[in-house]
């Protein structure tokens, strides 16, 4: 919006009279040396505007705002539930459609497993298990 230039000295004098009229009409100054037209304008501007809001407006708006806030708070929770359901449904659909293929692929890898778990591989796994065994037991006994 446009910024207006400051008032000239002549305009400042007019401004002072306007302000004095406000003070007089507001009962904050004596009615001296201010022409009637200034006071008439000040008085008209102080006249109350009729309030057009219906009775109980505050109560109705408050109820509506609180209801809207409640709905707002519920939406994220509902979206999470919907997303989880969609993911679950996609998982089930994937299993139904592709499950047989996945199972066949898994079974095809099984013959190679013994090569991993025998010999050095088995020894390594046993070693790791033995190394962690006292640690796990110590932690569980520490909790008690």
């Amino acid at each position, binding site marked *: 919006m446009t910024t207006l230039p400051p008032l000239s000295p002549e305009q400042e004098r007019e401004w002072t009279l306007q302000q004095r009229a406000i003070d007089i009409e507001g009962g904050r100054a004596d009615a001296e040396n201010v022409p009637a037209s200034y006071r008439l304008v000040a008085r008209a501007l102080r006249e109350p505007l009729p309030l057009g809001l219906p009775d109980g407006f505050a109560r109705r708006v408050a109820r509506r*705002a609180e209801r809207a806030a409640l709905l707002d708070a519920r939406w994220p929770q509902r979206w999470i539930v919907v997303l989880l359901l969609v993911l679950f449904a996609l998982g089930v659909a994937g299993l139904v459609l592709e499950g047989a293929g996945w199972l066949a692929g898994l079974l095809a890898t099984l013959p190679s497993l013994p090569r991993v778990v025998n010999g050095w591989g088995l020894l390594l796994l046993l070693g790791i298990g033995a190394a962690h065994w006292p640690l796990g037991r110590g932690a569980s006994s520490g909790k008690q």
Partner: protein
Amino acid sequence: MNADRVLVEAVLARRAGAFERLVAEHQGLCWHILQRLVRHPEDTRELCQETFLRVHQYLHQYRYESALKSWIGRIAYAVGLRHLEKKQVPLLESDTGEATDLALLQESDGFDLEAAWADAQLRERLHAAIDALPAVQRTLLTLYHLDELAIPEIAQICGLPAGTIKSHLFRSRLRLRELLQNRFGVSA
């Protein structure tokens, strides 16, 4: 703790009746701003409701940097301006920089104030002249005269520089006085 903080914290804590109290306290200012901007009672009611719904939604963002009254007023003013912009209503006159020639307007007048005030037709015309001012000017006049807000408070609500508000107030009041002199036969 000041009254604004107590009320805001009660609303944020969802205490029963707190938001209703907030609306009841500030609905007058909200009505003044919106009624002066849009001038249509039905639209004003709807916009007042929209304002308070926004206040409720964003109250957690209020940082106590200005009075709660000014913060709510700023929301009402923004809601009203957006409504007018949608309807393509001009907010300000294009020639607001041009003031009435003060030399043509004399300070002294010779009429009786109380007799003039008792003239219902004159008052009606004066109110019609206030109503005919551009939206922003008549809103500034109402905030200053009726709500008795100081210019810095009005600046917070309207986002205008204090000097510009002063100029608008000055020019609008000058124009009303000019109308008294020229149109209504009041000798100046």
